[in-house]
């Protein structure tokens, strides 16, 4: 069984690392070493949310979790080939809809906050164009996006867009990405949702 050491990692890195390891493990179980507190809680919540079975031991000054290889989410995707592959959300604007700006901003904000209440979360959210205004300093969505990040949703903002709005140094949640990654994700994902 593969063991991965996620000790001394700041959130959301433990969840992201575990997620990638499970995706690459092809159904095999993995053993994860974690610090107590948020890393352990977030990984347990993430794994349980995907239907994985988790068992726990105390080890080496922290915790070792053994995560059983096949989650119910994966089993469901395997049975439903149309939906195979993770769901991706493309936020291409800081507004949802073509009406008044004020309403559009409110709707997009509400949509992203409401994701926290849903059972099924997307695998990744890409922010492009004015969407990057939502992941940078001053956005009211930083708390919500951080929480999504802690639950295994990757928050990715387009580098060109950050540069255009001169906010590259103001990215406050998630990471910078590029058009190659975005295009690849759009073409290989199970579902692409553009609110």
């Amino acid at each position, binding site marked *: 069984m593969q063991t991965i050491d996620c000790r001394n990692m700041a959130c959301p890195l433990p969840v992201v690392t575990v997620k990638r390891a499970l995706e690459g493990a092809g159904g095999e179980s993995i053993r994860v070493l974690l610090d107590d507190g948020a890393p352990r809680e977030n990984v347990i919540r993430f794994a349980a949310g995907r239907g994985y079975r988790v068992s726990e031991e105390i080890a080496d000054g922290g915790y070792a979790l053994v995560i059983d290889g096949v989650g119910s989410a994966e089993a469901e995707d395997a049975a439903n080939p149309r939906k195979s592959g993770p769901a991706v959300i493309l936020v291409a604007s800081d507004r949802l809809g073509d009406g008044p700006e*004020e309403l559009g901003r*409110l709707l997009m*904000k*509400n949509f992203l*906050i409401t994701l*926290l*209440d849903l059972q099924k979360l997307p695998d990744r959210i890409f922010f492009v164009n004015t969407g990057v205004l939502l992941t940078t300093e001053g956005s*009211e969505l930083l*708390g919500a996006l951080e*929480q999504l990040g802690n639950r295994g949703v990757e928050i990715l903002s387009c580098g060109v867009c950050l540069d255009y709005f001169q906010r590259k140094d103001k990215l406050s949640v998630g990471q910078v990405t590029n058009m190659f990654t975005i295009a690849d994700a759009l073409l290989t994902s199970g579902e692409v949702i553009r609110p």
Partner: protein
Amino acid sequence: MVKDGDLLAVFNSIHRVLKAEKELKARGLPILLIPAPRSISADCGLAIRYAPEERLLVEKAMAESDLLPVEIYVKRGEEYVKMQGLGTGG
């Protein structure tokens, strides 16, 4: 999005809640406008979330600008408890 002890002032008119948000922000109060949780609002209600330590200033501001909510709830554990007092605005 809502922590134990946080307060939610629920409005059922989007125009009033947007005005209230603007007014409270103009006064520098740390509030956030969020969708009202489903357990306390059937349709697309909106709520202004504020911390208990802001209560006096926020509710005073709402009263002074005549932008009162329909109801105010406080989060206790996993539940929302309706508060008496300010309310029946909209």
